[in-house]
C-alpha cells in the first residue's frame, strides 16, 4: 500500500474533526501518514489510523503566512512520492495545496466532498454551481493534491502505528516576504464550529437583528449558529458566521433557516445540506423550494415553542 500524506490542522494541540476525517479517507486509498507542524504530536493521530507521523517544528511556520509550510510540504512530497496528498479545505489548507501542487507539478482538486480509489486511480467528487451539479474528476499528473471539505466522511477510530519521524527542511528566504505582526484569537462561542457542525441553525433579515431565539434553539439542539448576508451586512452578526457564497459553505446533516428568504448567494452556502428546514413569514420565500419541512410563521413565536419542545423531549 502506498503512503498518503495528510496535512493535519491542530490548533493548540487539538486535532480538528476535518483532519480526522482526512485520516479516515486516506486509509481508504492507502496508508495514512500525518504531517504535523509544531512542537506537539497529538496522540489522537495514531488513534485515528496514522501509521507514520512527520513532525515539522520551526518558528518560521507560525511567523509567516503559508510560504514556509508549503515549501516544506513540497519537499516532503518530493522525498516520499506519496499516492496522494490530502489537506483540509480551509483557506490556509487550499493555499498550501495550491503552492504544493505547482511546486511538485501535480494536479489539484479543491473542495472535494469524496475521494475514492479504484486500483491506482483516484477519483474525486465535487459539488459546484451552488450545489446544483456534481463533478467527478481524475488527476492526470503527479501526486494528486486534494483539498477536502469538512463532513465528507465520519472519522473512524482505528489504531495506527503512529511512528513519529522528525523532519526539517531549510526554509527559503523568498517565502518570508509577508510577516504576521499580530494574531488575535477569536473568543470561543462554546458552540460547534460552523463548517464542522452536524446541525446548523441560522438567522436572516427576519430576525430583525435579534438572534436570541435563533441561538436558544441552536443550543437546544447542540447546533452551530449561522447568519445570512443580509443579517451580517446589517451588523447583526459577525461575518465569520455568514453562510453563503462570500461566507462559509456548510453541508450539515440538518440546516434550519429562520427568517432567510433563500437568495442564490445564501443557497450557494447551504444547498447540499442533507435535511433542510425553514421558518419564514412569507409563504412565497424561495427557501421553501428547498425544504424538507417548512413552517410559514413568525420565528419569534415558532422558535421559542420549538426550543421548549426540544428541551421537553430531551428531558
Amino acid at each position: 500500500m502506498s503512503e498518503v500524506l495528510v496535512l493535519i490542522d491542530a490548533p493548540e494541540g487539538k486535532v480538528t474533526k476535518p483532519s480526522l476525517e482526512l485520516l479516515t479517507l486516506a486509509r481508504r486509498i492507502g496508508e495514512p501518514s500525518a504531517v504535523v507542524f509544531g512542537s506537539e504530536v497529538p496522540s489522537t493521530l495514531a488513534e485515528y489510523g496514522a501509521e507514520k507521523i512527520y513532525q515539522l517544528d520551526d518558528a518560521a511556520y507560525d511567523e509567516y503566512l503559508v510560504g514556509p509550510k508549503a515549501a516544506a510540504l513540497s519537499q516532503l512530497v518530493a522525498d516520499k512520492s506519496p499516492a496522494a496528498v490530502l489537506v483540509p479545505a480551509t483557506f490556509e489548507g487550499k493555499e498550501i495545496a495550491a503552492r504544493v501542487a505547482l511546486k511538485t507539478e501535480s494536479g489539484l482538486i479543491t473542495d472535494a466532498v469524496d475521494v475514492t480509489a479504484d486500483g491506482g486511480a483516484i477519483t474525486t467528487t465535487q459539488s459546484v454551481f451552488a450545489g446544483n451539479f456534481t463533478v467527478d474528476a481524475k488527476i492526470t499528473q503527479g501526486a494528486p493534491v486534494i483539498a477536502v471539505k469538512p463532513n465528507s466522511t465520519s472519522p473512524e477510530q482505528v489504531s495506527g502505528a503512529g511512528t513519529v519521524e522528525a523532519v526539517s527542511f531549510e526554509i527559503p528566504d523568498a517565502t518570508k516576504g509577508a510577516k504576521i505582526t499580530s494574531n488575535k484569537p477569536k473568543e470561543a462561542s462554546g458552540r460547534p464550529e460552523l463548517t464542522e457542525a452536524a446541525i446548523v441553525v441560522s438567522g436572516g433579515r427576519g430576525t430583525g437583528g435579534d438572534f436570541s431565539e435563533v441561538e436558544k434553539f441552536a443550543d437546544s439542539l447542540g447546533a452551530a449558529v449561522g447568519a445570512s448576508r443580509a443579517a451580517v451586512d446589517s451588523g447583526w452578526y459577525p461575518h465569520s458566521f455568514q453562510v453563503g457564497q462570500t461566507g462559509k459553505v456548510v453541508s450539515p446533516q440538518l440546516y434550519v433557516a429562520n427568517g432567510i428568504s433563500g437568495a442564490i448567494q445564501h443557497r450557494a452556502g447551504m444547498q447540499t445540506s442533507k435535511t433542510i428546514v425553514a421558518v419564514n413569514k412569507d409563504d412565497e420565500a424561495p427557501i421553501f423550494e428547498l425544504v424538507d419541512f417548512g413552517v410559514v410563521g413568525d420565528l419569534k413565536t415558532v422558535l421559542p415553542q420549538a426550543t421548549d419542545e426540544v428541551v421537553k423531549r430531551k428531558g
Partner: protein
Amino acid sequence: MTKIVVAVKYVPDATADRTFTSDNTVDREGVDGLLSELDEYAVEQALQVVEAGEGEVTVLTVGPADAADAVRKALQMGADAGVHVEDDAIAGSDVFATSLVLAKAIEKLDYDLVFFGMASTDGGMGVMPTLVAERLGLPAVTFASEVTVDGETVKIRRDGDAATQEIEATGKLVVSVTDQTGEARYPSFKGIMAAKKKPVEEWDLSDLGLDASQVGADAAWTAVESTEPRPPRTAGEIVTDEGDGGAKLVEFLASKKFV
C-alpha cells in the same frame, strides 16, 4: 506611486441557470456573462488605495471575446487601463495554465501590487491568487478584509475563523480581498463616458512568449470525468403556523431522529 494590476474574471451570471457543455467545460454561451461580483471588490479596493495616495490601476483579464465586458466595467468604475488576453488555444485550460498566462501578462506590466477577488463565482476554487504568486515568486496575502498602503509597506487585516491577523509586507505582493473590504461603486455617467477613451491592450499567447501546447485542455493536470445535475429536491411539507408551528417542527425533527 503605487501601480496595481487587478486580475478579473468574466463569469456566467450566478443568478442564471448555469450548466456544462458536452465536453464538461462551463457553458459560457447559454448564459449571460459579467464581471465576477467578487472581483468588483478587488477593483474597488485598488481604486481606494490609489485614491488615498498616488498610483494607477490596470485591469487584466484572460478570456474569450466577450470577456472585454469585464475589462470595460472595471474601466467604468475608474481603472486607468486594461489588458485583455485572448487566444483560442486557452479554452479549456486548468488553473495551472491560466495562472501561467496571468503571471506572464503581469510580468509584462509594470506593477507593485496584484489584486484579486477572493474566488471566482463559477469555478470558485479560490487558488488563483496563490498560484500566480507562486509563479511570480511572491508572497500572497489572501482573504484580506482591509488593505492600506503606507509608503513602501502594505498593511493587511485578515479575519480568519480562529483569529484576526495583522500582516505587513514590503515589496511586490499578491493580495486577494473579500467582500468585507467595502461595497463596490457603481460606474457614474462620467465614468462610463471616460472609459471609452481609456487604453485597452489586446494580447495573445505569442505576445506573452507562450505557445499553445502549454495551455488548453490537453495541458491540464486534472480531467473532469463527468458532470451530473443534482437531482431536484422532492417537494417538502409546508405547514402554516396556527399556534403549533414550533411543535410540528420538532415533531418533524424527531421523525428524522435529530431530537
